[in-house]
């Protein structure tokens, strides 16, 4: 009896110790970035190390708002991410429905190609795509970037939605058909409502993916600038070799804060959705 209780306590202690260690490993860098962002540049590397600045300041944040065009970048980010998710979701739902409900070799091959495209690193297609976008006048345009963002999220979205759809019995749609629903009516009024949790989950995951996308806006645009790439446009200091770590840290926080808030609010939906839509053996 004592032994069992002791084991339970030990197990609980072990669990909490591990949780604290993991939390520390994750949270300490964030804490460090935060205090670096409110430390004056002249005190950043002072010794002994200070875990709270002597003269905390919000100068870095003010500088970024005034000189780096944060508001404009936020606007561009919302436009690109918002449209990419909306259009990408419409296309993906239709594609996933087709792939789940109609079976033939051609469609199977299409699914294989789509999923296979996830395995190609961005850098492999970068230069040909750069030349192509310039030729069709889509380089450095919202349209070009949105197309690229959509192409980036479609394979994952289809994969998740198709697995969800496979779990929805076809008999529901057949019943609707007997009751007089046409194909589109059955899809919109019967299947889509059942798919709503999956759509919500994928939207959340896609939002985070798009917000984090660094390579696409960096490589395929010059003038349009989103939040994720803003960290590459911080001013050089007195000499071009010293990194402005105070500004880098402030920018880092500005970039990750929306994601932290978003994940904090929707973490249950994200986990549930991914678990439910995950590939089954």
């Amino acid at each position, binding site marked *: 009896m004592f032994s069992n209780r002791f084991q339970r306590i030990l197990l609980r202690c072990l669990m909490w110790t591990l949780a604290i260690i993991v939390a520390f490993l994750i949270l300490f860098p964030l804490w460090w970035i935060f205090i670096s962002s409110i430390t004056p540049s002249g005190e950043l590397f002072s010794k002994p190390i200070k875990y709270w600045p002597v003269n905390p300041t919000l100068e870095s944040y003010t500088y970024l708002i005034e000189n780096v065009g944060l508001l404009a970048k936020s606007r561009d980010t919302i436009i690109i991410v918002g449209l990419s998710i909306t259009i990408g979701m419409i296309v993906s739902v239709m594609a996933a429905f087709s792939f789940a409900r109609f079976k033939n070799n051609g469609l199977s091959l299409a699914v294989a190609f789509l999923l296979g495209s996830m395995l190609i690193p961005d850098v492999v297609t970068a230069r040909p795509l*750069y030349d192509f976008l310039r030729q069709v006048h889509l380089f450095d345009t919202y349209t070009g970037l949105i197309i690229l963002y959509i192409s980036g999220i479609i394979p994952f979205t289809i994969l998740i939605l198709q697995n969800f759809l496979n779990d929805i019995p076809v008999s529901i749609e057949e019943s609707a058909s007997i009751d007089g629903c046409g194909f589109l009516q059955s899809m919109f009024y019967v299947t889509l409502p059942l798919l709503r949790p999956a759509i919500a989950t994928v939207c959340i995951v896609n939002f985070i993916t798009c917000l984090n996308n660094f390579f696409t806006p960096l490589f395929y645009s010059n003038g349009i600038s989103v939040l994720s790439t803003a960290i590459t446009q911080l001013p050089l200091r007195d000499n071009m070799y010293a990194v402005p770590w105070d500004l880098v840290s402030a920018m880092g926080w500005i970039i990750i804060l929306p994601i932290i808030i978003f994940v904090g609010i929707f973490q249950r939906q994200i986990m549930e959705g991914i678990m439910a839509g995950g590939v089954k053996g």
Partner: protein
Amino acid sequence: MKKTKTSIFAAATALTVLLSGCSGVNSGSNNEDPNSGTTNSASGKQDEITLYTIQSTNPNFEAWLNEAQEKSGVKINWVAAPTDSDTRQQKISTILSSGDSSVDILEINDEMATSFKNAGWLDPLQDSVLTSDIVEQFPQGYMEDMLTSDKGDIIGVPSYSGYLGLWVDQKKLDAAGMKSIETEEDFVNFMKASTKDGQYGYGGSWEKTYVFNEIATFVNLFGGDYFDWTNEGSRKAIKFMYDMANTWKVTPVDQIADKYEQMNQKFIDGKYAMVFMWGTGNDYKEANRYGMDQIHMINMPRFAKRSIFTDSWSYVLNSSSKNKEAAIKFLKYAAGEEGELSGWKNFGRYPARADVASHEAVSGDVKVIYTEIQATNEIHGRPMLPQTMEFISEMGTLFQNYIQDQMTLDEFCTKAQEAVEKYK
């Protein structure tokens, strides 16, 4: 049902509004339809260029831009270049190599100038902008080392001059009973006198990609050749650095992890008596440690000779530009007195042209020491090869191995020469 239809209608309306707001507005440039500017009198077309710049996030950029537009007579659209070096080099390489004509003028640093000057992506400027009377005002060593191609074409207009100068802590110099550091002997004596109580006579940033600057500086001071490791001066320089760390112990070996940020902080904190550093001392000013009685720049000491490196950002003309006439107008402005002075006034960057640097508008401590350096030193661009970062990194690794007694001086020189041949 009605609710669903209303939602769909609202979503469609929102999408339409969003799409209609998508044209021509962006946050990393000012590439809007021009609504002001000057016109080319011959063709009636507007003189207009696009500048790829690293300065767009500088608080005084707008003032600089307005002045440049007014004085050059060219409407300048700008695109913000990444200030992160790797990203920037990748982007600019892509723009130039792909024949992208959306950018006319680019600001490039020494590393990029070395990589691009023989690639044929940049237009020569000696006939149109950098005529002999202008070129002779720029540091000759720098122009030859950095901005002149193998064919003899000059491909860039330096926007400023920044020396890798010797900065000393005056209090430590006074404590050592010295008035200045004029010779190699003074340099060594000062290092030895200032090394005590956990403080060192010399501080370096010997991280493998940073130490290149100091190795090359000592090679120059000893009259060596960074590309020739059989040269006695080059060998002396590297042995001198070894002795500083291991024989005299006047500089710490653990600085092989330090970049400029760490080195500067230690210098500010009083751990070092002198360092080699770029710029005009803003870090020291921000820490209230700048001044003739505190940290300040002094002239380079004479070892075998007095020699110093300068760096710059240069304006270059994209060969694929479709606005070359306007671009040359801008470059003439940038290479002229007004352009150089505007860089000093708005960005605090010391004019690269000697005649402009002597202008009364340029003043302060920095002018005094820069003028002395210009008059007494050989001024060079740093020794770089086309695969700049790979070469720098390999040399840095070899140096760190040597400093940590993992190879002998002869082995270092042999391998350094092999690296030179490999990347040349």
